């Protein structure tokens, strides 16, 4: 039995179908990236898993229990900066109902925020805010970590460092991760498997296992194997991106 099972999940807003029926299983300790063009509904799918949105059809099971509402068993990091501005870094990380001072301190160290515990979010760079958000989600010890383009708003260099940081954390304790992105390189570098989605209404197009060894190093991005994956996924996504562009007016959100 899978850790997370998405069974026939679809979503329609008013008359338009945003997300086709999706069947997807995520195994324990898996790192699955959902890769798709803008507006394909990949974020909607993640929000349904988080319990922030209700599916029009189908259901989501976590450890065989149906998901009805958001809960601490599914930690989430959003693309937008969602730290509580009135709390310091440390108090943000302590916000979760299952967070403890010991876990918070160890995570502050792991994400490299030692010395910034008592800073307010406004005093932090975007990368530091997202590291805090990641620590906040992990401190709550969720069964699965949901990441919605968490590095999408960061500059390229910072994003690359954040990918290595997250991958390092995953390699250390193999927390089950569901990661949504439109960045092909990001998906290959991080994932065990990449689920490619079609243009809106999003369907699951294919699942590509990434058989690159761990621990992964950033230099891996220039190896022939990496390039082969990149070429393969680029082809898959390109077709869908073209379709998405042709339907441009209705694809305002990711």
């Amino acid at each position: 039995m899978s850790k997370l099972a998405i069974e026939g999940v679809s979503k329609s807003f008013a008359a338009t179908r945003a997300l086709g029926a999706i069947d997807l299983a995520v195994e324990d300790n898996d790192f699955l990236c959902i890769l798709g063009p803008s507006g394909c509904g990949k974020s909607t799918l993640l929000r349904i898993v988080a319990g922030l949105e209700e599916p029009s059809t189908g259901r989501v099971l976590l450890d065989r229990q149906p998901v009805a509402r958001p809960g601490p068993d599914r930690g989430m990091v959003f693309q937008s900066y969602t730290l509580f501005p009135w709390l310091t870094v440390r108090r943000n990380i302590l916000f979760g109902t299952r967070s403890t001072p010991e876990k918070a301190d160890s995570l502050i160290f792991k994400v490299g925020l030692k010395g910034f515990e008592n800073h307010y979010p406004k005093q932090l760079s975007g990368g530091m805010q997202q590291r805090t958000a990641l620590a906040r989600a992990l401190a709550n010890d969720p069964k699965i970590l949901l990441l919605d383009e968490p590095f999408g708003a960061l500059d390229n260099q910072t994003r690359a460092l954040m990918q290595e940081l997250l991958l390092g954390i995953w390699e250390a304790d193999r927390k089950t991760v569901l990661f949504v992105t439109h960045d092909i390189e990001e998906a290959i570098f991080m994932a065990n498997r990449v689920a490619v989605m079609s243009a809106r209404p999003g369907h699951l197009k294919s699942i590509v296992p990434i058989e690159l060894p761990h621990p992964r190093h950033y230099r891996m991005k220039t190896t022939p194997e990496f390039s082969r994956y990149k070429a393969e996924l680029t082809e898959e996504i390109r077709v869908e991106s073209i379709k998405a562009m042709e339907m441009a007016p209705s694809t305002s959100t990711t």
Partner: protein
Amino acid sequence: MGPGARVALGLAFFILFFAAWALATFGGYVSPTFLADPASMLREGWNLLVQHGFMKDILITIWRVFGGFILAAAIGIPLGMAMGAYKPVEAFFEPFISFSRYLPASAFIPLLILWAGTGEAQKLLVIFVGSFFQIVLMVAVAVGNTRRDLVEAAYTLGASDRAIVTRVLLPAAAPEIAEISRLVLGWAWTYVIVAELIGASSGIGHMIMDSQALLNTGQIIFGIVVIGVIGLVSDFLFKAFNRRLFPWRLA
């Protein structure tokens, strides 16, 4: 523009204003019956304070403003929060309160005198009526505007519905609620004077009414200036207090 230049320009207008006033009155362009000159205003003010116990009136007026305002805030802020947080509560109260906010507080004075007499309760009620509906509506809007993604993040961290109110909506809206309080307190100063003009035997407004009967424009202007100074000082203190209370906004 530097802060020094700002202060200088701000002061310059005050000086210009007083110069024009002095010119009009000392120059004999305006009759003293209608407008006292600055010197007699200060003299009359000194008389008021020393001989007529005006300090007591000032303190009574301050107490009324704060008493009525605190009463309105103590009920209005929780109600506004409940409206901002829960849609059914908002649907229940919002139409009535939107209507009530346009009822002028001063028009209630005859009714309030009938109900509560001319004592302190009536004065506090005028301030209450004038402040309460404004506070409720503005707090409801402030709470309702809390960033959706912060609420969602809190839910994914295991927060209960109750915790969303106390740990997210309240702290997120707190600076704005403080700002609303500062604004409404400013308005309360207008209501208190109106309340004291009718059926009062003490307070700054009452003194102004008495001075009118004596055609003492110096006292009237002094009373008005005192209200202005107290308003400015309380506003300044409120602002300073808010800044101390919410360091994370300025960080």
